[in-house]
């Protein structure tokens, strides 16, 4: 056989081989006797550089490189949901069942189970013309996911054979299409190269909120279906916890969770918890809508680079069925570092901080694969990408954070000081931002309230003012401020403790509907307005800050169940009952306390 290369150099995950004229750029190859999986990343006069997705221990110069004649691809079909794969879609549960407590190398290109039988319903008759991407049947993949069977994006034609409904495995031919040139067999699965975005009919403008149940996000820094977000933060500030919360509670149809270069136990945690947690919308275990891609920090670094693409390709496949997908990538920094490591071993010219010059474009291309789209089959689907970023030393000025910030729509900046005081989620409300508010205006109006965004802006204003006041307080203390400014501090405390802080372990607080969020804001707003009126009448802050009332409002998040709307009116009543008589006393020129402001 002539089309076999020969290894001439081995340096960690990077291998060079000669006699590679017959190979193509980005081709997936099998490396050495163990048939390790690799990908060609450059070819130069018959010498190819290959990144290897498995440990290269024991590999020798002179061993062969075998072609696969296709680019690095994943198999897409039933059996993905509820599963966990490594960075190149090898099934970790199967590997475990076969005795793999540890991941051995040379296990070959296994993927979804091609022999498993599924009950298939075929929806197209013989004679029908099918376009690329058309839906021709379905499989109930999990209790919540109806897996639509699609013609691959590069095939089309007239149906000349259609299988009867029944139970088949993935290799069974379900349709034969005649495109005038070829007769193509269509099976339950298709293959797609991970680095190429799957085509769509068109992209839609952003218009829907991705509801996450997290107050600081939904109210202040919303995510959009089809949008992008980054969660940067130093170690231990809560990126993974935030990603887990989003994976649990966001109202996507399917969650693709990519553990990219992070801890093994964090994947295990999802595997143990998600089957037990129920999706509030249908009572089904969350695992039934989740797929995990795991390349933990100690797994081969080249597969880390691929894991992000494997994840997004799977997301696109389900999007093409007309689903809303949320993809979490934790952490994109590890992916960027994998790029850097490979680039370093190739002795490429480094740009900023050793990263290759193509880092910004790779980051941009990845987030570009998010979007709200009309699929080839005419369905509406979306992918939201939420990437964690782990800046060295927690310093956001580094290249990965900066280049990510430039392309994402929502930026949820985690803050070390908040994390130290165990204010969770430690999302800093001054440094975070979202570009989606205008796109989502109608959504909030139609689904929450006309006043939701007004309240949002008002509360952000209060928090912003508090931030400025705290600069002064740090220098001179709080007592010197006039009472209307002290009120800003007090209301901000209520907002911080009673609203922004959210307890992911509390049954009522872990996941909060927008209705409840709006109602809580309404109560806090009433408190502010009544208190402000009182301040203007000269009521001293010590009387305004009524302990019991403030405590009740701060803890309303723990006390009001989702369906008890009337409770919020009771809080409002409680506020009125306290302030109205107080103010009228002052109106009548009743008891006057010394005004603290005039003392200073």
């Amino acid at each position: 056989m002539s089309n076999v290369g020969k290894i001439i150099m081995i340096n960690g995950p990077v291998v060079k081989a000669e006699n590679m004229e017959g190979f193509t750029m980005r081709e997936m190859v099998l490396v050495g006797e163990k048939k390790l999986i690799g990908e060609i990343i450059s070819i130069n006069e018959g010498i190819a550089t290959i990144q290897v997705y498995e440990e290269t221990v024991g590999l020798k110069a002179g061993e062969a490189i075998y072609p696969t004649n296709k680019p690095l691809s994943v198999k897409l079909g039933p059996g993905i949901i509820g599963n966990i794969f490594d960075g190149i879609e090898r099934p970790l549960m199967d590997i475990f069942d076969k005795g793999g407590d540890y991941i051995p190398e040379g296990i070959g290109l296994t993927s979804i189970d091609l022999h498993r039988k599924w009950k298939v319903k075929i929806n197209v008759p013989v004679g029908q013309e099918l376009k690329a991407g058309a839906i021709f049947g379905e499989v109930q993949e999990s209790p919540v996911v109806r897996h639509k069977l699609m013609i691959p994006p590069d095939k089309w034609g007239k149906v000349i054979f259609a299988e009867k409904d029944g139970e088949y495995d993935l290799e069974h031919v379900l349709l034969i299409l005649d495109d005038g040139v070829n007769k193509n067999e269509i099976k339950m699965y298709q293959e797609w190269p991970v680095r190429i975005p799957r085509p769509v009919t068109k992209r839609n403008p952003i218009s829907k909120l991705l509801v996450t149940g997290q107050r600081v996000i939904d109210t202040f820094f919303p995510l959009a279906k089809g949008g992008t977000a980054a969660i940067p933060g130093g170690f231990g500030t809560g990126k993974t916890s935030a990603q887990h919360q989003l994976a649990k509670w966001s109202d996507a149809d399917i969650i693709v969770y990519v553990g990219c270069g992070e801890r093994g136990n964090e994947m295990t945690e999802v595997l143990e918890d998600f089957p037990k947690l129920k999706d509030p919308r249908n009572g089904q275990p969350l695992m039934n809508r989740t797929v995990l891609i795991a390349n933990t920090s100690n797994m081969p670094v080249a597969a880390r680079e691929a894991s992000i693409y494997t994840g997004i390709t799977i997301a696109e496949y389900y999007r093409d069925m007309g689903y809303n997908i949320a993809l979490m990538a934790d952490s994109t920094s590890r992916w960027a570092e994998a790029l850097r490591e490979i680039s370093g071993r190739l002795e490429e010219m480094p740009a900023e901080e050793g990263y290759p010059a193509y880092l910004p474009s790779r980051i941009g291309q990845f987030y570009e694969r998010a979007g709200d789209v009309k699929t080839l089959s005419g369905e509406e689907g979306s992918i939201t990408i939420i990437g964690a970023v782990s800046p060295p030393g927690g310093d956001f000025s580094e290249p990965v954070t900066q280049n990510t910030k430039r392309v994402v729509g929502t930026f949820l900046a985690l803050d070390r000081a908040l994390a130290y005081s165990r204010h969770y989620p430690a999302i800093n409300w001054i440094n975070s931002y979202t570009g989606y508010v205008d796109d989502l205006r109608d959504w909030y109006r139609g689904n929450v309230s006309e006043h939701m965004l007004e309240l949002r802006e008002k509360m952000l204003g209060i928090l912003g003012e508090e931030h400025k006041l705290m600069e002064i307080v740090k220098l001179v203390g709080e007592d010197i401020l006039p009472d209307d400014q002290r009120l800003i501090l007090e209301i901000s405390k209520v907002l911080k403790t009673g609203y922004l802080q959210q307890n992911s372990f509390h049954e009522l607080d872990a996941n909060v509907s927008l209705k409840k969020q709006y109602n809580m804001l309404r109560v806090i707003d009433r408190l502010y307005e009544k208190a402000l009126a009182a301040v203007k009448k000269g009521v001293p802050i010590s009387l305004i800050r009524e302990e019991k009332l403030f405590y009740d409002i701060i803890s309303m998040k723990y006390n009001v169940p989702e369906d008890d709307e009337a409770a919020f009116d009771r809080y409002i009543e409680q506020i009125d009952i306290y302030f109205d008589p107080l103010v009228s006393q002052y109106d009548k020129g009743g008891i006057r306390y010394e005004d603290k402001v005039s003392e200073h």
Partner: protein
Amino acid sequence: MKIKYLNIKKIEGPLIILDGVKDASFDEMVEIEVEGQEVRKGKVVQIDRNRAIIQVFEGTTGMSLNNTRISFAGRPLEIPLSKDILGRVFNGIGEPLDGAPLFSGKKYDIHGRAMNPVARLYPRNFIQTGISAIDGLTTLIRGQKLPIFSGDGLPHNELAAQIVRQAQITEGEGENFAIVFAAMGIKHGEADFFRRSFQQSGVLKKVVMYQNLADDPIIERITTPRCALTAAEYLAFEEDMHVLVILTNITSYCEALREISASREEVPSRKGYPGYLYSDLATLYERAGMIKGKKGSITQIPILTMPNDDITHPVPDLTGYITEGQIILSRDLHQRGIYPPINVLPSLSRLMKDGIGEGFTREDHPDVSSQVFSAYSRVQEIRSLAQVIGEDELSDTDKKYLEFGNEFEKQFVRQNYDENRNLMDTLDIMWELLKILPKSELTRVKPEHIEKYMEA
């Protein structure tokens, strides 16, 4: 018969470059004979056609282009293991240092493989260390990797020794525990301190030591923790033992890695450390944990010193990104005479959330610890305010916070080197201290818990 190679091309730092090699495999072990007698070990770190680059463990001192013969072992570095390793001392490549041979039929590749996340068992069992700042606020969980971030001259060794002495690693009074100790670049005195302390607490027979001290060959510093962790995996997953691994000093380990990387002329990343430092450290730290269907566990306490007490230095920074939290020692507390000088605010135990509270420790534990964190972080703000405006100008509430802060450090954080507090006492002290604050400040604890634990 193995082929012996003579044609060394170049010797540079810890590396030998050898030409005309036929059958070398990546990462394989080599034996190097110097002057026809002394045998050193090395491994293949790069292959380029028929040239092999070899890293020599004991160093290249005394080697010349013509006094050295090299033979390839055909396998990666392996060490023999059996239960007889308990109570013994080995060097950084797993050879006994106490003269006696080790009998074992089985050899283990020290590199290990990545644990399949499906095979892992999520750690949830609390280990009482008897140290309030840890048990109460940064709870250690069996199977966790929880490093100590320290600085030169801070008592991290004492703290680690106290943990080893007091930690209840096994359920009940079990005997099936072991301590694996990897010394990397530490001084003889420090190693002796640990040995004495193991002896005093009567666990010496349960300790396996792999040591590469400050004056040992730097290159073996890279294999030392790997030998130790291979031994730990053997004890935990083949002998069902609960293993506590102490790795010290990670900073020396990383410096050795940097030195070798520099001699290979690799592109450096931050502060000259190689770009793969994160992945490399992960291959150590991720070897902690538990496996489904196995009785044992590996709990890791790596120790590192932060150069210039700088937590953003790559060694602590990348460690923090991999480990499941960190215990941070503070020079300020140390100078104020507080032992253990644990700065609780930046300290963190990530596995704590699933291992405390009702059914694990006590129902009030999550909330009361959160309240203490919140209060103590407020203390820091007020302290800096007090420095500006003077303590007298503080509001009454702020003064209470100052008092809380001082008492917290004196009564809660501070304890004796031989004081073993049980968890209930630790929790009660927290409530006792919270009494100092006005009740309206206690927004993170439940009113019924205040009644039950504070006012009772």
